[in-house]
């Protein structure tokens, strides 16, 4: 347990100190959303209709921020060596890293999303479902990213490859997440996509740390 607390505390301290913390992710999210009306024009109805998709896409891209440094920075500093020699199983350590990453990106993002939804004229009834869907869905994005980060850990310019690996795998989360918000905005029941979204996240919670630990050992051999 000590090890996991140590990992989380360190990640959060680092995020705050080097300015990769919650604020930056939220600012990025905000900018993405504010450029959409410029691209589409002042058609409030159209924007309102595509708002769920845009919000979820923005969340996906904001989650990718910082993922490439999640393990690569540790590898460059030689810290991955110590993780491999730790008392705690590597997969738990990696899961703790993913949790820390989510605490500084996914969580704050989910909480401010309704406010940003206002800018896109989203239906008031869809605001709570938006936050819930992001709270449930963004952990899956972080976990998929963790596997990608492990695979690209020893590549100097792994960031782009990481995105190429992670984005296709995020499609199920994107589909179910955006559907939750769309259905809620249309005043229909959204429990089914929400359950499916939770399912994806739970599956990722089981598979991703295991896959990431395997990938990390393999990538360094």
């Amino acid at each position, binding site marked *: 347990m*000590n090890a996991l*607390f140590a990992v989380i505390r*360190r990640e959060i301290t680092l995020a705050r100190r*080097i300015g990769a913390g919650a604020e930056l992710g939220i600012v990025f999210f905000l900018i993405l959303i504010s450029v959409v009306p410029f691209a589409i024009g002042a058609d409030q109805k159209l924007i309102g209709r595509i708002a769920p998709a845009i919000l979820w896409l923005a969340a996906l891209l904001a989650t990718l921020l910082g993922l490439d440094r999640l393990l690569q920075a540790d590898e460059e*500093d030689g810290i991955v*060596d110590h993780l*491999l*020699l730790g008392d705690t199983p590597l997969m738990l350590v990696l899961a703790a890293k993913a949790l820390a990453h989510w605490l500084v990106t996914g969580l704050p993002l989910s909480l401010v999303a309704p406010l940003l939804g206002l800018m896109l004229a989203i239906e008031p009834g869809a605001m709570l479902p938006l936050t819930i869907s992001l709270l449930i869905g963004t952990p899956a994005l972080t976990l998929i990213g963790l596997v990608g980060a492990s695979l690209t850990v020893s590549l100097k310019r792994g960031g782009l490859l990481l995105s190429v690996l992670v984005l296709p795998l995020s499609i199920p989360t994107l589909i179910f997440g955006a559907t939750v918000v769309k259905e809620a905005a249309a005043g229909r029941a959204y429990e089914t996509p929400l359950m499916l979204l939770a399912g994806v996240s739970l599956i990722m919670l089981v598979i991703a740390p295991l896959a990431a630990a395997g990938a990390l050992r393999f990538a*360094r051999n």
Partner: protein
Amino acid sequence: MGESKIPFAKVLRLEARGLAVRRGFRLLFDALDVDLASGDILQLTGANGTGKSTLMRLLAGFTQPDAGTIRWLGLSEDDEASTLLHYHGHREGLREALTPAENLAFAAGILGGDAARIPFALERLGAGSLADLPVQVLSAGQRRRVALARLLVAPRPVWLLDEPLAALDVAGQALVGDLLAEHQKSGGMAIVATHQPLGIEVRHLMLGGVAS
């Protein structure tokens, strides 16, 4: 100070047989045997590129040999060899944005050490006054001292030290010798890759030449 001398309860033996590593078409080393027991310090020498660091990483379990086996004898049922090792490589394992105290607290958490020993460990390495500065502002030698403090924060029986004397001043190099002597006395084992004399009784292994 005395608390650093907890003898290691288990008597360990390292038995590596017929190790071979290939890099591309070149054979780095071949049919290499390493035998060490608790209380042994092995000094690893050899010209540049003969595989000293490779052997270290092999013994740490980070990479697999192309042939041969590495066995740690004397482990109990639920011991993993990796949890007995300290690996100190060229990269110090310190994050620049954190302070030495924070870096060591993290190492203590990961390696099963005791964060309460951090002030003592830094003091011992002559880096007590650096505890709360960002690693970023430290010199190479100071960083090396902080990194070596990890050995005392989390006592482990096997030390794999790859060029631990690099960047250290004369006093620092003597200090590493003292630490190794203490480690040896408490029943620890160490493999040190360096060309400088350590000032203690060691066994020698020369790569790319005649082994003794």
